[in-house]
């Protein structure tokens, strides 16, 4: 039986799913689920596709995680959602305001998940998301309060982009907005900043070790020594064991710039990536430059970029795509690419971005779009 692509959509007012037919031409919108909940991220478990996790809260209520073990048909709440440990005397009182990010753990660690929160905290579950424990090595790191300062984003500090090296369960990366990229080689016991070469032009230090505003970080699944990030200050690539990021966004057209939120990698080709540029000039409108939305792609690791805008609005298209709201499926012959906008539209391409079609509109503000089956 052919597998059909499902897009899991988190919005400011609930969760939806878009289910494709076999050719990815017709899409059926299912939902809403959790109507009225803020859903920052919905992720299907690639190791066990019947399992789907959703990060949720409402305007009134505290954060939680909902779990489905039947591909989204029914949901139960995590028994112990992510929460910081109880503060001791004299410590600042940290409480999770929102679960912002979910990452399924290593392929060999079935049931393991990571969650990133606002304020910036890292949490781990070893039972499929039922119970969560703080990762003390990060949350209580002696440098945590130094690395991560300031509000980070309009909804606070955000820990996101938790990435697990497919060769090594103990090798982890994550991104913090603001804080930058951090790496652990001991399963989260200790961490260090990994930001050399990345601009942080909102800080007085021209070459700081931390404090950067990483918007989205990804590690290539087939070539895990290659990292990409879309940063508040440009698009970067890092080839490990190198330590210094290269600003590959420098090759973007000057009138478009290299500011944005998401970056999406090809499942097998480490030289291919897609971004959705936004206007980062003057007061930072964070909308498509000149009202002409486009995806840009590279096929050579960021040495050159090509505009992909067929099917997208030619003018007066002031789209914003947030960091979790762009993704690829795994149809390698004709890779599907998808993005959701803060104006409630879902756009799809079934030819690697060559052309685009709007497959859903009138949704609430889209926070995340992830591909599953």
């Amino acid at each position, binding site marked *: 039986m052919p597998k059909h692509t499902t897009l899991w959509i988190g919005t400011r007012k609930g969760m939806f799913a878009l289910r494709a037919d076999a050719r990815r031409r017709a899409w059926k919108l299912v939902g809403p689920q959790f109507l009225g909940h803020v859903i920052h991220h919905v992720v299907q478990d690639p190791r066990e596709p019947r399992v789907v996790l959703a990060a949720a809260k*409402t*305007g*009134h*209520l*505290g954060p939680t995680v909902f779990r489905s073990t039947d591909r989204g048909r029914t949901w139960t709440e*995590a028994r112990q959602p992510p929460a910081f440990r*109880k503060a001791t005397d004299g410590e600042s*009182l940290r409480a999770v305001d929102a679960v912002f990010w979910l990452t399924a753990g290593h392929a060999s660690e079935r049931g393991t998940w990571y969650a990133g929160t606002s304020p910036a905290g890292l949490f781990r579950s070893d039972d499929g998301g039922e119970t969560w424990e703080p990762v003390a090595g990060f949350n209580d790191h002696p440098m945590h309060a130094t690395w991560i300062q300031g509000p980070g984003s309009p909804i606070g500090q955000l820990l996101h982009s938790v990435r697990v090296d497919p060769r090594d369960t103990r090798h982890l990366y994550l991104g913090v907005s603001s804080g930058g990229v951090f790496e652990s080689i001991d399963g989260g016991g200790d961490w260090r900043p990994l930001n050399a070469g990345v601009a942080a032009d909102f800080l007085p230090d021209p070459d700081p070790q931390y404090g950067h505003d990483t918007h989205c970080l990804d590690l290539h699944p087939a070539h895990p020594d290659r990292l990409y990030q879309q940063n508040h200050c440009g698009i970067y690539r890092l080839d490990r064991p190198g330590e210094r990021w290269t600003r590959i966004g420098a090759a973007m057209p000057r009138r478009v710039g290299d500011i944005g939120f998401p970056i999406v990698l090809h499942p097998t080709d480490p030289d291919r990536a897609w971004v959705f540029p936004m206007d980062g000039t003057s007061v930072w409108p964070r909308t498509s430059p000149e009202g002409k939305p486009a995806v840009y792609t590279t096929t050579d690791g960021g040495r050159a970029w090509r505009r992909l805008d067929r099917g997208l609005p030619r003018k007066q298209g002031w789209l914003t795509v947030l960091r979790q709201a762009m993704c690829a499926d795994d149809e390698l012959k004709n890779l599907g690419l998808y993005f959701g906008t803060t104006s409630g539209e879902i756009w799809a391409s079934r030819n690697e971005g060559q052309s685009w079609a709007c497959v859903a509109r009138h949704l609430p503000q889209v926070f995340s779009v992830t591909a599953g089956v």
Partner: protein
Amino acid sequence: MTTTADTVQTRVASPLRSYTDGRPVVEACGATVREVLADLDRRYPGMRFRMIDEQDRVRTHIRLYVDTVPVESLDHRVERGQTLHLICALSGG
């Protein structure tokens, strides 16, 4: 309905009724708000954390009252016959 000496009525705001099977009023036991909330969480797992954070602070958009008296501390005493109100303050848009 059987009530014990420290049973209090609890009025549940609509956003929390997914935990109480839609019931707007439920019973719980305890001599303080802290104890009543703990009992509520035993009966309706997960409910407390949506109102009270991990540092035992009432969340920003939640208000608790015993009868008409605002709860300033989770150690606020409750008596039999009193009502604990779990209220969601205005928020969002």
